[in-house]
């Protein structure tokens, strides 16, 4: 009798995990299916799907880095400001030597995240506060110095091709998955998010691994800033305006638990970003009335989050 109950419980747990794994995919399929029906298949045309993929990559890359920070239970609100600063620095340096644009983006992204993590880890300021302050500072600096905008070097116009984005995304994904699933950086950050006390008692240097998570987030923001410059052709006062919100929405839509821990998966970045941009694309293709677009968007988000949200760490 007890064995049978144990078996039933085991099957229930396994079923729950399977559903949890499957639901983020269902969210994306749900959006594509709904708009495919409503637009007579226009959403599913190959060209349109490639377009959605390209549109989603900038947020996808940022979300990959933010997953490390989310894993230990923090939100990185600095990504928008950091992206703006990195873009400004890269465009400025790019006028001297165009080939320094990518390294400048990465160095700037990493430096900003080092500043954020130092304020959080060394001084003990909560991460959401330190990241938010840096976000405001970054955006403020860029708004003050860009005027009507600074163009990226002309040679990069030729790089604005889907395959360039795809290659960068795939490399980022491979590196992120490897670090997240097969190294101490990913494992320990997830453990810190799941149970910080247990992590501390087991001898993990929490400050060190949180800092590494922020640095990886900064690195990915640097890459995302470079992609933004390719896509937008330059930096302006509006660069990175809603980027942190987009990243958070994407991770949530992809099924990542806001509280962090072992429920955070790298696939959330991919699935969430595709779902988010497929939804925006579908709403425009269907020609939804602008009066209700935000209501529909919000209601659809709510439905998808209800389907995909990982409740394993809820309070």
């Amino acid at each position, binding site marked *: 009798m007890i064995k049978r109950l144990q078996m039933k419980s085991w099957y229930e747990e396994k079923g729950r995990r399977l559903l949890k794994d499957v639901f983020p995919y269902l969210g994306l399929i749900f959006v594509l299916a709904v708009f495919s029906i409503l637009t007579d298949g226009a959403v599913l045309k190959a060209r349109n799907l490639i377009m959605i993929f390209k549109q989603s990559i900038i947020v996808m890359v940022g979300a990959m880095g933010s997953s490390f920070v989310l894993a230990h239970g923090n939100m990185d609100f600095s990504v928008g400001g950091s992206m703006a600063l990195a873009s400004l620095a890269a465009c400025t340096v790019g006028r001297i030597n165009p080939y320094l644009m990518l390294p400048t983006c990465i160095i700037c992204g990493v430096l900003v995240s080092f500043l954020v993590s130092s304020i959080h880890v060394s001084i003990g300021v909560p991460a959401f506060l330190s990241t938010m302050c840096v976000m405001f500072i970054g955006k403020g600096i860029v708004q003050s110095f860009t*005027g009507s905008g600074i163009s990226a070097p002309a040679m990069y116009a030729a790089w604005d091709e889907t395959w360039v984005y795809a290659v960068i995304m795939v490399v980022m994904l491979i590196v992120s998955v490897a670090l997240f699933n097969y190294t101490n950086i990913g494992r320990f950050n997830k453990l810190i998010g799941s149970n910080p006390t247990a992590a501390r008692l087991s001898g993990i240097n929490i400050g060190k691994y949180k800092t590494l998570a922020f640095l990886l987030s900064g690195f990915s923001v640097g890459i995302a800033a470079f992609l933004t410059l390719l896509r*937008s052709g330059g930096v302006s006062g509006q660069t990175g305006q809603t980027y942190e919100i987009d990243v958070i929405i994407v991770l949530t839509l992809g099924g990542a638990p806001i509280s962090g821990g072992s429920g955070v998966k790298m696939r959330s970045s991919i699935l969430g970003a595709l779902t988010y941009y497929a939804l925006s694309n579908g709403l*425009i*293709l269907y020609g939804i*009335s602008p009066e209700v677009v935000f*209501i529909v968007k919000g209601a659809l988000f709510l439905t998808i989050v209800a389907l995909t949200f990982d409740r394993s760490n809820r309070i």
Partner: protein
Amino acid sequence: MKKVFALLLTAAMLLTLLAGCGSEGGQPGDDPAPGEEDGADPADPDEPKAPADSQNDGNSQDEAPPKYKIGVILYSKEDSLGARMYSLLNDAAEALGIELVFALGDMDTPSQLTSAENLISAGCQGIWLLPLAETSSQKISALCEDNGVYLGICLRTFTDPDINEQVRGNPYFVGNILGDDYGNAKELTRILIEDFSCRELAACYAAEGSSLAYRNEGVRDAITEYGATQLAEATGIDANVSAVPGYIQNFVNTNPTLQGIVLVSGTLGMGETASNTLLTMDAEGVKYACFDAFDGMVDCFNDGYLQVVCGGQAPACLYVLSMIYNAIDGHPLTESGLELRMTYLFVKSAEEAEDFLNYVENDQVSLYTDEEIKNMTVRFNPDFSWDGLQQVMKDYTFENIISKVKG
């Protein structure tokens, strides 16, 4: 089980909501378009049509007008300018029998570019754009050119020579219309100097290099040209609204002979803030002029400090729509996309301010009748031309608008 049922119910309700709120114009690519008869799909980016390759003879008033589909990329419809443009564009779409697909709320270049891609994918034959940065114009222009979609730009120009060259070289670029910032700033300052006898002035300028910087030049030139003196200045009010009270207090406290202040922007509460600061300081004899009409301007005029406001740029959206419509319809108003600059309306009293808010800025009031909107197109008015559009813009004066709308 209950949760699953609730979710299914939510999904069903959403589907119903979507079905009820969708476009009335059918699915992407369904709409008739010039050139479609010969097999070219206007929405197919792989087959860009030649610009204006399907002219009609302009004498087709009796035929049902084609239901063209035009995408509108607008930052918001929540502030006064966005809301007014939104209502004017919708009125015009109804008059012309076209479908507008709105992409609202994009706040940076990648978002605007994403919306443009989605709108083109949705089968739009033209894009109406209010770019948030010059790079938006550059990227969306290239996208439109690649896809054979017409582009019209509202309230922006291109200060970067490379972007200017690239956008104007796009055969699908129909033109851009913006306020004559320099001329309007000069006139605003002239009115304050000559009509209100303010010869000792201070000015709050926009950050140099910003899109409002042309206004700075207009104010400076007017001060020199009309024999006034600038006693003090502050820069960057467009980026730091909260600094305005401090600037005004400094102007008044350190310059006892100060007679007038010019603000190159009055949005985001700057207009009201200036009036309240002067009222609190009891700054007798100091008057001010500012750009951009604002909701509280009637009270500000009554307080006695505000003397002149210029605003009313929303109709620029209609002139851009007219250029796009004519191009799609096979009657581009110019061979290459040119720029037109419109004069704003100048409001000089509380009574005029009330009329302005009630008629010019009121979403419920149409500034142009359906007939007048139709007359801005060659399809309905074969004599309409680039000169005709310029005449319509010249006729946009405060007196004309108020007498027409009130009458």
